[in-house]
């Protein structure tokens, strides 16, 4: 599989290590009253879809950036990749 790195162009997936569902970026609030339940869900439960899946890949043997790769789990087709930090910053309203 070739991952279209937003900065480096197409890179072999072997250069990356895989973490899992991109929802892992949305860490629950550890101070909330429901934190134990929220963290049990966050740590253990997965949507595990058959089809389009947004997932975290770490460019360990490259520029050591985290990417969010959109990939089809049924065909292994890679539909796009973006820097995880861009996504995370956009979620909180842009770079502080």
């Amino acid at each position, binding site marked *: *599989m070739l991952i279209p790195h937003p900065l480096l162009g197409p890179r072999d*997936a*072997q250069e990356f*290590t*895989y*973490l*899992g*569902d991109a929802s892992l970026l949305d860490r629950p609030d550890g101070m909330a009253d429901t934190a134990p*339940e929220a963290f*049990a*869900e966050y*740590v*253990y*439960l*997965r*949507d*595990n*879809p*058959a089809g389009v*899946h947004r*997932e975290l890949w770490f460019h360990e043997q490259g520029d050591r950036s985290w990417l969010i790769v959109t*990939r089809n*789990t*049924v*065909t*292994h087709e890679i539909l796009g990749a973006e820097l995880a930090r861009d996504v995370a910053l956009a979620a909180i309203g842009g770079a502080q």
Partner: protein
Amino acid sequence: MRFSGFRVVKEALTGHHGWKPLWRNPAPQPAYDYVIVGGGGHGLATAYHLAKVFKGTRIAVLEKGWLGSGNIGRNTTIIRSNYLLPGNEPFYEFSMKLWETMEQEFNFNAMVSQRGIVNLIHTDAQRDAYRRRGNAMLLAGADAELLDRDGVRAMYPWLNFDNARFPIKGGLLQRRAGTARHDGVAWGYARGADLLGVDIIQNCEVTGFRIENNRVIGVETSRGYIGAKKVGVAVAGSSGRVMAMAGMRLPIESHVLQAFVSEGLKPVVDGVITFGAGHFYVSQSDKGGLVFGGDIDGYNSYAQRGNLPVIEDVAEGGMALMPAIGRARLLRAWGGIMDMSMDGSPIIDRTPVDGLYLNAGWCYGGFKATPASGYAFAHLLATDRPHETATAYRLDRFARGYVIDEKGMGAQPNLH
């Protein structure tokens, strides 16, 4: 129709006209007491034990494709009970005992062959760990022997004992472990269940659950609605997809695990050898092909095929362990979809929906567990209580902090 040596001779002399299909092909009834979703090894074993041991009646097995088209046909056929933890080892030893008697019981040749498994040791720390594991196995009634270097050499003199990084220092041997004919297991259970009146309904995909007042009352299928008092789901690989139809998220990721077989060779590997440090294990089929595999590809997948980097990794492991394998040509490679649970151990439990039961999360180890998984799941379906060897396989163990960290890696690919 019973199989016997006499029967084989008689059919040979009379032109083989007497053989009949091994199971019926019934149309679904409007309702059943028990509906098992998934006609693979575990689902068929569940139906068989439910009918045979727990005297259940009106049982149906619903299979999306053809019988045994999932992981029971896509594994490396190894059976063993060499686990460490008290939540696991009694269950797998129970499974091993069922393997030893199943052929006589369901009158079908599953080619169970107790040819022994050796887990190789490369360091002192690993020897300590395997000694502990061997003792845990003995405590659970299994057999285990710790081999020194010469002991392994006596069995497999052609291994590379002096690999610079992973020299072989010994091994943990379980003589009662071995291999079985994977399709034969599915066919044997299917035939046994059919003879006991179970309806095995193929090409019948479950497309939804009908749930009222938090109780399941039936399943929607591609062949119409089927009512059910109890529904057991045994669809490892697709558990996440199926249980999502009941509104559930599971502690499971689906990953692809590849396996390989070489061209047929003269007998060379008479048991099973695992080289965990090198992500490689190998046995030899009765046809002569070397059957080997390694680790999961390491990303979510439902594709039933893997990619070349892992093939290369497994081949490198093979070359490091037994350089002679380099002379063999690869014949076939295939991939199966594993339910990788978050702690690497399975789930056999009720679900938050009344009447809906789950058998899932088998990771690498579904095949060897087939008989016990079916027995324990049937026990749960029939009595609403977990089987005594499967009490640790709870669905809520993750939230409660009772994970079974047999190898402490689960679905996380970088821990493999």
